[in-house]
Each structure stands twice: as structure tokens, then as C-alpha cells.
């Protein structure tokens, strides 16, 4: 799977596939075939040139692969016995079968029935290879995802009550849905947020309520979906760096959250991560419990220390929460 084929094997594989492909589509346009087969038009024309000289032993007229090619469209008239594609190899069978199992398991997905029918047919075509030793079980927060999905399917804009962990606030906003996706453990709605005037990813489990508005979803033309290949949260260099001392029992956080650096000292690890907001970092890091001690930046350390002392103070005088110096409340 990781080994790439040699270029000549690659080309042979393409040619063996090209003949039955064209055979099934008499008169197809070269441009359309190239797009379908994910090759350039030039590559396809070169492949067609090569097919002319391939055929059955004898290699005379009637033996060679024959086709009508008028420059734009092509029709195979003699296939020299290559009328069917080569069967799926183990990697192809695995990649398709596992991906279909993923789709079938994805909560909130439409046409689950079609996916399961397709899976059964692909497995049957893959024969012995169908028993891919891979099982899939995705998160099961079905109900909310299904509800949001039905709302998205209405094609209308939505009003969301959404919890933003970075600022620890729950706000109302109107969004124009673009797509829904699941990444690892979480499901997301990607939408144009009219409040932020930008494309945003909304975690489904943080949408506390929603209503379907009486107007169509109209994301602006320039609203581009995020590239998910590196995960949802890709911290940029402009975000503040936080350093932590993590004891043995807290090392798991390096597996769950994107970290910039880990220095493994005996006993404690020194972890560096980027955070969107220091206030969030305080809630999040303290929320991880006794295995985490923040060592920088100094203002965050001081903030945590002061908050801990202030919080302890309210247990000494249990009758009132201390006045908040910021608001005077």
C-alpha cells in the first residue's frame, strides 16, 4: 500500500483498464474520459496511440486492438480479448470496503441503505479479498446529528445557540450551512457565520439549540471549505505558546491535543502547546487536574495562581462569592 508501482506497471494497469472503459462507452469524448480516469488528456492520447499496436498474436488487421478515433471521440471496435477490467487487488478492495464501512457507520448520513447495498456488491466482486480485517465503529451521538442534518437538508439558513469553548460563552448566530463532516471523535457543521463573516466549523455537540429560518442558505461565493487533511485545529504561529510540566498520569494529553513540542525528562514531561486564548487555556489546563502545572507564559501562571487563591477564599467565607474586581458585581 505504501509501495508505489513502477511507472511501466502503472501504465500497463491503465491500458488494461482503458480498453474495457472505452468499450462500455462508445463515442465518448476524450476530455470526458480523461477526467473520469483522472489522467491528463495528453496522457490519454498517448495511451490511445500505444493501444493501436497492441493485440493478439499474428498482429495483423483483425488481431490488433481497433478503434475509431476522430480526434475528439473514440469508439473501440475490436478489444482483442481485453473486454473486462482486471479484478480488484487487495489494497483496492481494502480501501473501498473500509471506506464504505466508514460511510455506513457515519451518524446522520443519508442513503445508508444505498451504502449497504453498494458494500455488499463490492464485497461480492472482491471475492476472497472482501473479508477485510477491519471493523469500524464511529461515535454514536446520532440524534442531535440527525436533527441538525435534517435542518441543513432544508437548504435554509439556521439560527444557532452555540457554545464557544475558547471564550466560554454561549451566543446566538445566524449561519449559512455548507457541509457536515465527522473528524475523529467529533461531528461538525461547516457554515458561513454571518456574525463573524467567515467560514466556521461548529462542533455538533456544542450546538445547544437551533431553529430553521425562513430564508435560504446562501454562503458567499468566496466561502471556502477548510482543508481537513491536518485535522480541525491547526494552530498558527501567531497564537500564544503555553508550557506545561506534566506528570506521568497526564501524559495522555499529548495524544489527544495538538502539541508543539515534548521534552521527556525523567518523571515529568515538558510540553509546549499553542492555545487560541489564555482564558481558555486556564479553564482547560486546570480542568485537566493535578497532573498539569503551567510554567509559562508568566501571566498565565500568575492568573492561575491568583484564581486558585481567590477561589479558595470563598470556601473560607462560605456565604457569598467575592466581588469580581473587574465588574464590581
Amino acid at each position, binding site marked *: 500500500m505504501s509501495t508505489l508501482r513502477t511507472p511501466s506497471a502503472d501504465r500497463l494497469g491503465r491500458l488494461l483498464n482503458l480498453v474495457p472503459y472505452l468499450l462500455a462507452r462508445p463515442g465518448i469524448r476524450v476530455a470526458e474520459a480523461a477526467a473520469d480516469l483522472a489522467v491528463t488528456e495528453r496522457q490519454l492520447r498517448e495511451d490511445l496511440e500505444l493501444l493501436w499496436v497492441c493485440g493478439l498474436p499474428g498482429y495483423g488487421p483483425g488481431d490488433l486492438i481497433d478503434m475509431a478515433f476522430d480526434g475528439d471521440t473514440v469508439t473501440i471496435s475490436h478489444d482483442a480479448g481485453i473486454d473486462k*477490467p482486471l479484478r480488484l487487488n487487495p489494497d483496492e478492495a481494502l480501501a473501498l470496503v473500509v471506506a464504505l464501512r466508514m460511510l455506513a457507520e457515519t451518524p446522520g448520513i443519508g442513503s445508508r441503505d444505498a451504502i449497504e447495498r453498494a458494500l455488499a456488491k463490492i464485497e461480492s466482486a472482491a471475492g476472497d479479498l472482501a473479508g477485510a480485517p477491519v471493523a469500524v465503529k464511529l461515535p454514536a451521538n446520532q440524534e442531535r446529528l440527525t436533527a441538525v442534518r435534517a435542518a441543513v437538508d432544508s437548504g435554509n439558513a439556521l439560527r444557532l445557540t452555540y457554545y464557544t469553548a475558547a471564550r466560554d460563552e454561549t451566543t446566538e448566530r445566524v449561519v449559512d450551512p455548507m457541509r457536515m463532516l465527522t473528524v475523529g471523535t467529533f461531528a461538525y457543521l461547516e457554515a458561513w457565520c454571518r456574525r463573524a463573516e467567515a467560514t466556521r466549523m461548529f462542533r455538533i455537540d456544542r450546538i445547544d439549540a437551533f431553529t430553521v429560518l425562513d430564508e435560504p442558505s446562501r454562503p458567499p461565493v468566496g466561502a471556502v471549505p477548510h482543508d481537513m487533511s491536518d485535522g480541525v485545529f491547526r494552530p498558527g504561529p501567531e497564537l500564544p505558546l503555553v508550557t506545561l510540566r506534566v506528570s506521568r498520569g497526564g501524559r495522555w494529553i499529548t495524544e489527544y491535543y495538538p502539541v508543539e513540542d515534548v521534552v521527556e525528562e525523567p518523571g515529568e514531561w515538558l510540553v509546549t502547546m499553542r492555545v487560541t486564548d489564555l482564558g481558555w487555556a486556564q479553564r*482547560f489546563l486546570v480542568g485537566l487536574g493535578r497532573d498539569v502545572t503551567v510554567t509559562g507564559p508568566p501571566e498565565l501562571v500568575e492568573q492561575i495562581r491568583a484564581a486558585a487563591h481567590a477561589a479558595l477564599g470563598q470556601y473560607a467565607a462560605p456565604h457569598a462569592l467575592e466581588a469580581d474586581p473587574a465588574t464590581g458585581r
Partner: protein
Amino acid sequence: MNLVICLLSTRRFLTAAQIAATVPGYEHDPSDPRDHEAFQRKFERDKAELRELGVPLETGTASIFDQEPGYRIAQREYALPDILLEPDEAAAVGIAARLWQHAGLAAAASSGLAKLRAAGVEVDPQATLGVEPVVTVDPSFGPLTTAARDRRAVSFKYRVPEVDEPSARRLEPWGVVCWRGRWYVVGHDKDRNAARCFRLSRIVGDVRAVGRPEAFTPPADLDLIKHVARSSGPIARNGRATVTVRQGRAAGLRRLASAVVTAPEGDILTISYGDPEWLAARIAGYGPDARADSPPELRDAVIQQLKELASRHDRSVAEVTR
């Protein structure tokens, strides 16, 4: 290409010499040792290429009098069985083929899809299903699935974060599981002599296949998911906490509340919980914006965590200013 067509068209096994005499590109003088050797090298290379593509090359002799091995390709082994997909099924396959973010699997999925197209399946590249899973895999996915399919033992180094050194593990892999977005391999651990599962992201370095294929048989009643999922049932939330939060603050705690009562000193939340330490850490994260009032086990846990937090960070401040 001509070699494939030739071998597909024959029922008889053809020897290398017969192939050389027929297929263009193999012309040579068999009596010239160097020329003959060059042909043999080329022929070996081409056979390897066919096997690499998965072309089922059969070897045998045309009759019992023949000494030379011959070759042919059985049509029924070669061809993809007929497959008829309804438009909605074809759309599902097209979407499935786009899921992989991993380059190797993405290439395998798209070449598989190209074969289905060649079999006459029409795939709408624009189709969507409403929700798209974004699928990533760890580098050990390929070697582990291959080993599980071949029933071949593997060895790898495995590192649990709580343990300092990676340990060498030997496993008969039964299968690979994606459980809530994370990948695991399940199998028989040859050192522990018991069923174990390992998280793929914790495998350090390469996975090596060890020994011969078909070396073991997975249990007949194997349920891969069960092996991974058995420890993580739903959390029972039997505790009921009362937490006072400042007005307009601690939105994250408010979301956990089943009831909110407004009082002069703040909003009083009722929160169901399972693990008091877990909830205590969250409350501590809100500093003076939140106070645990009851039950005592929660209140004490918060106070204890805050004390530790203060002393750890008093020291941390000292380190920073030093």
C-alpha cells in the same frame, strides 16, 4: 500489454521460448548467450510487473512430456466479476473512494474506482451524502491489515505514554478496528499469551512481519469491536451537585446544568455527575467564578484541588521569576 493479451488468449501453457517467438519486443537470438540472457531478464521483469498489478499468472506445463514451465492467464481469475450498481450505490462508492486522506489508500481507492468505471459503472463525482467522514490512518495501518489478511505474526515497538520506554511486542493480528475515530489492532499477544488491543498511534517505528503466512487462525466467534469497546461503557451520572456561579459567567458549567435558579449571590446550578474529581477539576478551572456547595465529597475535592493548584503554581511563579 501484448504479453497479457497473448496469455489471456491461450488455453495452453506457453513456454518462454514460445512467447519469445510470438510476442513483439521479445525478439532475440536464443543461440547467442548474451542476447538470450537479456531476453530472460526482460521476461522476468515483465512477469514481476504482472504479479505486481495482480494479474493472475498461472504456471504449468502443456503436457507431461514438457520440461519447460509454461505460462497462461485464466480469464475467470483475471476479470472483475460483473457488477451492476444502481445510481445511488455508485454515488456511495464514489464518495467512499474520496474519503481517504492517506496517500496510499487514496491511490488504491481511486484505482479501484477506475476499475469499476471500466466495468461500466457511472460515478457522479458531484454526489454528496450530507455528512462526510474525514478519515485519517496511522502509518502502521497498511502493514497491520496486510499481516491480518495474510495471518502472519508481526513485531513492533509499543509505547504507552505512562511508561518511559517502548516495549517490544509480538502479535498475531486478527484485525484492525476504528473505534470512535481512533485505530486499534486486536490480536493474540504472543508474550502475554492473551488477547490484547494496541492503539496504532502508540506504535513506534516499523511493523515487521515475522514468520510464514497462514500461521494462525483467529477465534471463530471473533467480534473485533467488542475487544476494543469492552472497557468504555456509558458513564453513570448518579451524583447531584449544587454549584453557585457568578451571573454571566461559567457558560461551560451552565451547559452541564439540568436546572438553574437565580439567587442574590449568583446562579445556583444543579449538575449530575459520575466522577467527582472530574467535575471538581472543571469547577476549579473557573476559579472564583464558581463554587461547589454540595455534596461534601465534591466540595472537598474542589478545595483539595485548588490547594494543590495554588501550591504548584506558587512554586511555578517562583521558578519563572528566578
